């Protein structure tokens, strides 16, 4: 998978041509809409009245469109002016408003302004530094502490992001826990490379436990909690042995979940050694 984050600043990557491409790509539109719907579901808003939502990294307003369809009003922030230009041309944008801002420098809103916050495919940009003055961790903490301020008490935030490495997901969750948020990462379709999506769900409620990810049997993901976040996650690699019966069964299981059809059945012969003379 290509990672535009590695090529430089978001404001440079999403220039006019790239922004237009993004906005008219039907695959992109479909994916973004789907993610936004899932994010709204995870947000668990009180829908008896129209909510006022903050959309960080709103881009060309694809996510805003979904918010509007759900009856909410929104304000979108983005660091790319070209993306915002495309968004402002969108005619249907009657309930949304835009501002040009870099989330790594905080949020320009008074306290308790919003009923909820979503961010679609934007948070991972904060993990990269594009100048000597940008320190990823400091930018993340600055963003989360600003977010803590602008949300109404009891509101939630859902941030979908693409971590490059598991360490990035841990770093992000640690920064969120540091400013006082509770919550965790929900991973949808953890067994698929393409459909796999990470959602960081944040809440003010200390006892808040994150909803389960879609189509996942095992509990996966990292929990944000002040008490556990300081512990390092150690990856212990097993050596030798090779292909045990468990390993084979697991591998077949993963393939079945991915939807492969030609996976051999598990039988009593699975993982058995052949006779020496064959």
């Amino acid at each position: 998978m290509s990672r535009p984050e590695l090529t430089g600043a978001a404001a440079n990557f999403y220039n006019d041509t790239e922004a237009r491409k993004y906005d008219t790509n039907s695959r992109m539109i479909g994916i973004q809409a789907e993610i936004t719907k899932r994010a709204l579901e995870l947000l668990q808003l009180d829908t008896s009245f129209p909510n006022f939502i903050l959309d960080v990294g709103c881009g060309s307003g694809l996510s805003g469109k979904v918010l509007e369809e759900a009856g909410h009003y929104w304000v979108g922030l983005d660091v790319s002016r070209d993306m915002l230009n495309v968004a402002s041309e969108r005619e249907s944008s009657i309930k949304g408003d835009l501002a040009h801002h870099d989330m790594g420098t905080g949020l320009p809103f008074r306290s308790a302004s919003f009923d909820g916050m979503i961010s679609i495919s934007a948070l991972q940009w904060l993990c990269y530094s594009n100048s000597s003055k940008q320190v990823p961790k400091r930018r993340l903490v600055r963003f989360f502490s600003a977010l803590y301020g602008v949300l109404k008490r009891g509101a939630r935030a859902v941030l979908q992001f693409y971590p490059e490495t598991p360490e990035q997901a841990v770093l992000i969750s640690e920064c969120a826990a540091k400013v006082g948020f509770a919550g965790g990462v929900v991973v949808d379709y953890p067994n698929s490379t393409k459909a796999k999506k990470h959602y960081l769900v944040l809440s003010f409620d200390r006892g808040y436990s994150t909803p389960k990810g879609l189509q996942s049997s095992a509990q996966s993901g990292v929990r944000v909690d002040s008490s556990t976040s300081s512990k390092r996650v150690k990856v212990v690699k097993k050596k030798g042995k090779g292909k045990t019966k468990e390993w084979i069964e697991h591998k077949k299981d993963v393939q079945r979940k991915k939807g492969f059809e030609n996976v051999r059945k598990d039988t009593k012969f699975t993982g058995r050694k052949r006779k020496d003379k064959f």
Partner: protein
Amino acid sequence: MRLLTHNTLQSPLTSSYPLRITATEIKYIKSSGLMPEEGEKDFVKNLMEKKKLEWSGVVGGWRDLKEIVERDLKGEVEGIEIPETQPRPNDPSYTKTLKSLHILLLEIHVITGTLVDSSNERVFKIEGGIPNMILLEDEIE
């Protein structure tokens, strides 16, 4: 930029509130999708009753825009009345204020102009209806 957004914006540097608006171009966009709805479903009414509006921001925004609205949107927007203090639901002028708020917060757009932080005179430009709140990395501590 709508006044609804202005109502939430504060200076990212000094937390000064509200930001002073100087508008050179404004636009009135009437939209059927924004019509006031019944009861709880109405966004503006909801903002008022759940105390989500900062009244000083509404008053400040209207004070800054009044002149240009009366000059440029003559015939389109009329009869906006914003009291100095936030009215209560049983005040006689309440429904009228709601109507005014609906137009002021949702239907008037500032296209070109500036937002000024009155504590240090830092200027944030508004171009094409989008305020530029970008800070330089040097400006943050």
